[in-house]
C-alpha cells in the first residue's frame, strides 16, 4: 500500500498513552509492511520525553511543538494536522474522548473516508479496507468496507489491538511545527478553560490491589451491603460499573471504565457486571479476573479467567460467610 500511515499519539505528563503501541499493532494489521509515523502535539520537555520514547517504535515521529498545545484542543489541532498531513494518508486515532472530538471533523477537512471504532482489520483489496466494528452496544459485530484509496481517518478501539512492544524501530523525530503554524494559530472559536477533577471519594481504587466490582446484577441499592461485606471479608475495595454511578448508588470515583477510573489490581471480581467494553477498558495490567453473573452469555465471561454462573444476590452472602469462617 503506497499510502502513508499515521498514528495520532495521546500522552500525559510526558508519557505516551497505552494506545500508542496499540496503534502500531493496528497499523501492521492494516498493512504488514506499513511504516508508521507517529504524530504528536504538545510543548516543552514533556513533549520531548514522549518523542524520545516513541522513536523506538515508529519510523518517524512528527512533532508539533507550541505553547498553545500544552493542553491539546481538538479544534486547534485539526487545522494544524490538515496543514501537515498528506491528502491521501491513513490516520489512526484512538476511539476515546479526544479521538471522538477530533476524528470526524478531521475526515471532512482531509476529504478522507471515515471509519469509526474499528476493532479489527481483515485486509485491503482494491483500495477497500475490510474492517470489523460492533453495533448495539457490542451485541453484534459487522464487517464494513471502507474506501481508503483517497485517504482515511480511522478510529481504533483502545484495547482491541495488542500493544506492539517490540521497539524494533529506529525512528527519527521530524519537527513539523513551522509547517503546522504557517498561517497562524487556528481554532479560536473553542477555548480550553480548565479540568474540573472528579470529587475524590473516600477510596482511590486506582491504587487498590484487590477490587470487588459490582454491576447492574445487584438490582437494588439496598443490596450493595452484601458487596461491602464481601469486600470487608476479603480486605478489598469496592468499585463498580457505570450504571451504578448513573443511579447515584456509588460515587463516580468508584467507577471502573473508559469514562471512569483506570485500575491495575492483582485480582478483580466482576459481580453482576455484563462486561461491556467501556467497563473492561478501564481494567489494565492483566489481573486475575473472576466473573460471577447469572447470565451465562454475558460478555464478561470472554475476558474473565474464571467464571461462575450464579445470581450474585444468592451467591455472595454465602461466599462472604465462608471467608469469614475460614478467617476464624
Amino acid at each position: 500500500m503506497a499510502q502513508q500511515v499515521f498514528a495520532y499519539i495521546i500522552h500525559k505528563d510526558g508519557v505516551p498513552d497505552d494506545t500508542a503501541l496499540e496503534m502500531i499493532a493496528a497499523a501492521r494489521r492494516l498493512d504488514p509492511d506499513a511504516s508508521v509515523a507517529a504524530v504528536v502535539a504538545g510543548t516543552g520537555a514533556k513533549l520531548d520525553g514522549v518523542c524520545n520514547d516513541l522513536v523506538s517504535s515508529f519510523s518517524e515521529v512528527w512533532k508539533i511543538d507550541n505553547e498553545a498545545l500544552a493542553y491539546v484542543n481538538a479544534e486547534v489541532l485539526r487545522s494544524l494536522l490538515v496543514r501537515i498531513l498528506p491528502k491521501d494518508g491513513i490516520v489512526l486515532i484512538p476511539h476515546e474522548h479526544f479521538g471522538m472530538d477530533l476524528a470526524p471533523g478531521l475526515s471532512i477537512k482531509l476529504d478522507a473516508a471515515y471509519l469509526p471504532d474499528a476493532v479489527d482489520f481483515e485486509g485491503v483489496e482494491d483500495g477497500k479496507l475490510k474492517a470489523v466494528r460492533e453495533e448495539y452496544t457490542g451485541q453484534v459485530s459487522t464487517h464494513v468496507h471502507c474506501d481508503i484509496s483517497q485517504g482515511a481517518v480511522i478510529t481504533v478501539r483502545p484495547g482491541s489491538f495488542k500493544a506492539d512492544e517490540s521497539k524494533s524501530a529506529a525512528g527519527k523525530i521530524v519537527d513539523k511545527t513551522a509547517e503546522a503554524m504557517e498561517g497562524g494559530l487556528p481554532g479560536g472559536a473553542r477555548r480550553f478553560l480548565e479540568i474540573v477533577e472528579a470529587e475524590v471519594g473516600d477510596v482511590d481504587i486506582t491504587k487498590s490491589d484487590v477490587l470487588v466490582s459490582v454491576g447492574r446484577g445487584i438490582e437494588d441499592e439496598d443490596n450493595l451491603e452484601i458487596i461491602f461485606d464481601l469486600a470487608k471479608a476479603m480486605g478489598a475495595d469496592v468499585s463498580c460499573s457505570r450504571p451504578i454511578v448513573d443511579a447515584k448508588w456509588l460515587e463516580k470515583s468508584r467507577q471502573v471504565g473508559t469514562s471512569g477510573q483506570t485500575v491495575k489490581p492483582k485480582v478483580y471480581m466482576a459481580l453482576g457486571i455484563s462486561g461491556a467494553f467501556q467497563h473492561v477498558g478501564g481494567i489494565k495490567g492483566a489481573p486475575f479476573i473472576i466473573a460471577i453473573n447469572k447470565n451465562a452469555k454475558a460478555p464478561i465471561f470472554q475476558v474473565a479467567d474464571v467464571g461462575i454462573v450464579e445470581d450474585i444476590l444468592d451467591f455472595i452472602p454465602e461466599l462472604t460467610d465462608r471467608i469469614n469462617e475460614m478467617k476464624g
Partner: protein
Amino acid sequence: MEILVCIKRAPDTSENEIEVNRDGTDIERDDLVYSVNEWDNYAVEEAIQIRDKVGGSVTVVTVGDDEDEEVVRREMAMGADHGLLLSDETFNGSDGRGISAILKAEVEKKKYDLILTGAQADDGAGQVGGMLAAMLDWPYASLVNLIELIDDKKIKVGREIAGGNQEMNEIDLPCVLSIQTGINEPRYVGIRGIRKVASLEIPVHSAGDLGIAPESVGETGARTKRIDYFVPELGEGAEILEGSTEEIIDKLFELLKTKGGLK
C-alpha cells in the same frame, strides 16, 4: 436561541434482544421495538430547557423515511416546537458523511444558533456531530455533559473525559455539540402527550428541496459501507466453575488465596 436537534430512530437496546438474522444481512427486526435514540433524547431535553430559559425555539430533525417520523412526533410531544423529516430515496444507504451533508443542507435554510446531537447512536459511531460542524465550519465539542449560557455569543461547556473528570471549554455560537447521557433528567412523554401531537403536520424535505446532488449521498456517495452482520466466534473465555454451590465456593476460596485476593 434557535436550536436544532438531530435525532435518530433506533431499536431500544434495553427492550430488545439483538440478534443477527439468518443470512447475516441485518439484525433480526421482526420483534424489535423502536424509540428515539437515548442520547438524542437527552439532547432534546437540554434544548428544551435552554429554550425555556432564554426563549427561542427547538426544531428536531431526522433523516429517514415514513416510519422515522414517529420519533420526530414524540420529541414534539416532549416540547420541541417544530419537527422536520428529511426523506428521499437517494438518501438510503448514506454513510455518516452522507447524513451530515444532508443535515448541512437543511441547516443552511435557516439561521440556527446551536445544533445538538446525541454523543452516539445504535451503531456506536458518534460521527455526525463532528462532521456536520466541520462541513459548516462551526466549532464542535463532543461528549458534553454540562452547558452554561454566558451570552448570545458564547457558551461554556463541560466534556466528559477519563477518570470522571470534566474538561471545561468556552465555545462561540453558532456551534455544534454532541450530548452525553446524564446531562439532565429527560421528562416523561406519556400516551396523552403523543396523542396531542398526533395530527400535527411534519414537513418533509426531499433531495430537491435541499438542493442535494444524489452522487454525494446515499449508497453511491458512501465511502464506508456495512457488508454484513455476524456474531464473532467466542474464544475460550473463562473457565466456568462447576459443581454444587459449596464446591464452587471451595474452589473459589482456594483461587482467591493463591492469587492474593484475600488479605
